[in-house]
């Protein structure tokens, strides 16, 4: 009986190849792409992630802080915190300069909170893309 062969797993590229683009990509949205000379895509990523984050701030979105408690509280707050921190320098500057705001009720604030977290998650996608380009899996 013929068995389907599993596709060979691609080996992980060496750390020194992808670490810098991924780290710079975290710190500056689109930075990994600048480093890899993908300027057009880098500009689109920088503009999109930064606009998303700044709009979130202007809508007075809340920054998540890690909290303990029941499982839902832990999941929401840790997940939100990781999403926020994935924005790199945008998150760090907001925290250092005191622009991080507490959670307040209201539809616009709620949208703002989602914009802030989504900006970080989009930056994670950009970091993964930079990793794949650096590793030679994508052009």
């Amino acid at each position, binding site marked *: 009986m013929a068995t389907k062969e599993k596709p060979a797993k691609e080996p992980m590229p060496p750390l020194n190849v992808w670490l810098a683009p991924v780290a710079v990509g975290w710190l500056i949205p689109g930075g990994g792409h600048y480093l890899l000379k993908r300027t057009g895509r880098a500009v689109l*990523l920088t503009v999109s*992630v930064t*606009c*998303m984050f700044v*709009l979130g701030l*202007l809508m*007075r979105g809340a920054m998540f802080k890690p909290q303990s408690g029941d499982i839902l509280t832990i999941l929401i707050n840790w997940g939100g915190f990781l999403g926020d921190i994935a924005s790199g320098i945008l998150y760090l500057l907001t925290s250092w300069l005191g622009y991080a705001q507490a959670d307040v009720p209201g539809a*616009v604030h709620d949208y703002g909170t*989602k914009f802030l977290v989504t900006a970080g998650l*989009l930056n994670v996608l950009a970091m993964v893309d930079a990793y794949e380009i650096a590793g030679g899996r994508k052009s």
Partner: protein
Amino acid sequence: MPKMNLSHFEASFLFALFTSVVLGVVTKRTDRERLRYGLYVFGCFFAALVGIGWLMYFGHG
């Protein structure tokens, strides 16, 4: 810091726009495919926005 008050539609529109751009950029392999995919994702977001909006409108009676 100034406060921005966007309507549901404006906020959803901007969310769809920026998310589509990033998804288009990171997903495909050629610029043409990226553009097409970005537009496709934006279209899906927009269809969901309008569709769910009407659904909620009729749901409320």
